[in-house]
């Protein structure tokens, strides 16, 4: 056997930069698509991707991985899932697939942007594998839910969600478009691979994978842990890009991109993963709260990776950490109360036992979020179902496109964070969201939230029926309580113990 070691030819395969002479450097790598804050391309010669692989290794390993992932998907197990899994778990699958599958595809386009416009050959080669990875993640996360289509119309939203004006889909697109699909190559390297993938998809995939195993959904568990092995490879595109920027006097600008990436990603994970972990996952299978998970992954690990790179923590760090305690509880209330407007069936997750767990994990929950749920529970028990459905829209944050919300009950601190900009008043969920807007108003200025569209007359008729039609969501696919309100039985037996405390 005389096959050269990869190290003997790897560098040759990434010596592919040249200075063009028939077009200009600026034409070949236009600022709008390359970015890079004015760091010239020769400075990017120092870019060194820490994770090295090669084409033959890639196709071999990925072939083997796919053989594993697809073989786990045995027919018997698939069918059993619907009979045995808790409906809350099924809801997690639906929200996950609808929220992620086409986002992965957008990430493929973003990796392609780095492959074409990235200033360093090593980045362009790694992003080529990134393109393939994201292509894989899209296809896996469509192939698996597809077989459930015939049982449940909501699984159609794995493809459909991103093509609608459903509000959670708008919010998801906002994050995906703002953090990577609508960014230049350098910003993608930092916002998508460093902030989003290193910081957050770790959490989504590792957390959900272990939850899936707990629940007994081994198909999903192995699927997403297989995806995570790809992510942890191509997520490393961003680190060396940050090092180049820092070495060339762009630390502050690089930090700003990281901060924007974290803030944008946090909102989406908060609305999708937070309720999944603390409400939809059956109580018996919860190993950790969303807050504990965030503390381990974001504070414990991601914070360290920022510090290792010599980056300061974001100015908003304390505010963001404070949100671990309440933000996803607020989103959960919104998801459940506005359930006819989402493509999965949210679990209420507020039986007496579950409330005990919430109170233990989040001291004060009963006195704040519990107060809203008390009223909801009373209505459900009394059969006043009309009072458990919305008749208006939440005000949506002009940054995240999610409802502006915070702590209710006796901790009431809900607040608008407005900004007047060029004659228009924008509304934000927090100082962080408002700061995001101020970093580059031209990216957001003429975008209209769902509420803005309603007020501008773009949604007709301007009532709940018209709004649902605009969202392209109809009975048969729109959400309802995951357990068909069976959880309320605990309160029917003893209507006076409405609080677990």
């Amino acid at each position: 056997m005389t096959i050269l070691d990869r190290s003997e030819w790897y560098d040759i395969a990434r010596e592919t930069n040249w200075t063009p002479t028939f077009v200009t450097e600026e034409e070949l790598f236009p600022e709008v698509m390359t970015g890079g804050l004015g760091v010239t391309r020769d400075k990017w010669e120092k870019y060194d991707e820490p994770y090295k692989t090669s084409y033959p290794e890639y196709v071999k390993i990925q072939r083997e991985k796919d053989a594993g992932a697809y073989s786990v998907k045995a027919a018997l197990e698939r069918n059993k899932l619907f009979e045995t899994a808790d409906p809350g778990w099924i809801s997690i699958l639906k929200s996950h697939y609808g929220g992620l599958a086409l986002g992965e595809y957008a990430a493929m386009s973003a990796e392609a942007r780095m492959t074409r416009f990235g200033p360093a050959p090593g980045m362009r080669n790694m992003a080529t594998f990134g393109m393939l990875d994201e292509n894989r993640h899209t296809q896996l996360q469509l192939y698996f839910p597809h077989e459930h289509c015939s049982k449940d119309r909501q699984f159609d939203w794995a493809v459909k969600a991103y093509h609608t004006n459903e509000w959670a889909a708008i919010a998801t697109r906002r994050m995906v478009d703002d953090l990577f699909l609508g960014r230049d190559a350098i910003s993608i390297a930092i916002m998508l691979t460093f902030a989003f993938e290193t910081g957050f998809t770790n959490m989504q995939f590792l957390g959900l994978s272990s939850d899936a195993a707990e629940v007994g959904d081994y198909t999903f568990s192995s699927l997403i842990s297989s995806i995570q092995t790809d992510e942890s490879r191509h997520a490393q595109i961003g680190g060396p890009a940050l090092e180049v920027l820092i070495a060339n006097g762009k630390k502050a600008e690089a930090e700003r991109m990281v901060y924007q990436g974290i803030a944008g990603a946090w909102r989406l994970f908060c609305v999708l993963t937070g309720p999944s972990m603390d409400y939809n996952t059956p109580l018996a299978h919860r190993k950790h709260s969303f807050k504990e998970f965030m503390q381990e992954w974001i504070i414990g690990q991601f914070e360290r990776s920022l510090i290792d790179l010599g980056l300061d923590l974001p100015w908003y760090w304390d505010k963001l950490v404070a949100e671990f305690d309440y933000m996803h509880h607020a989103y959960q209330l919104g998801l459940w109360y506005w359930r006819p407007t989402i493509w999965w069936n949210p679990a209420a997750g507020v039986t007496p036992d579950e409330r005990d767990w919430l109170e233990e994990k989040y001291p004060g929950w009963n006195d704040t979020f519990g107060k809203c749920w008390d009223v909801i529970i009373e209505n459900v028990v009394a059969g006043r179902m009309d009072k458990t459905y919305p008749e208006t829209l939440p005000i949506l944050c002009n940054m995240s496109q999610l409802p502006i919300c915070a702590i209710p009950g006796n901790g009431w601190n809900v607040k608008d964070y407005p900004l007047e900009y060029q004659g228009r008043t924008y509304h934000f969920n927090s100082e962080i969201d408002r700061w995001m807007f101020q970093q580059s108003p031209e990216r957001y200025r003429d975008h209209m939230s769902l509420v803005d569209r309603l007020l501008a007359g773009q949604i007709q008729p301007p009532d709940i029926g018209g709004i649902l039609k605009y969202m392209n969501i109809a009975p048969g696919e729109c959400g309802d309580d995951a357990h068909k309100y069976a959880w309320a039985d605990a309160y029917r037996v003893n209507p006076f113990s409405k609080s677990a405390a």
Partner: protein
Amino acid sequence: MSQLPIISNFQGDFLLQLVLGDSEGTINSLAEAAAYHSVGRRVAPQPGKVIRVRRQGETGFYKPDAKVSDTDIKAMDCLEFVFSDPDKK
């Protein structure tokens, strides 16, 4: 009647909501419109209390019987709706 969309920040509720008020109506009727979307839904009623209205960030309330169009309230202003004792002004 002239519809006036405002942002309702209702005490004890968890979010801001879009509420359509009547600019020719009183502040009280605006409070009722906001209460419709919060009280008895996610906010427990507080018998014996009244709901007063103020602009976010301010301490003074609008007069309950003032006509909305006579106040400085404009479309999409963020207003706080707060339970108060009836005797307190």
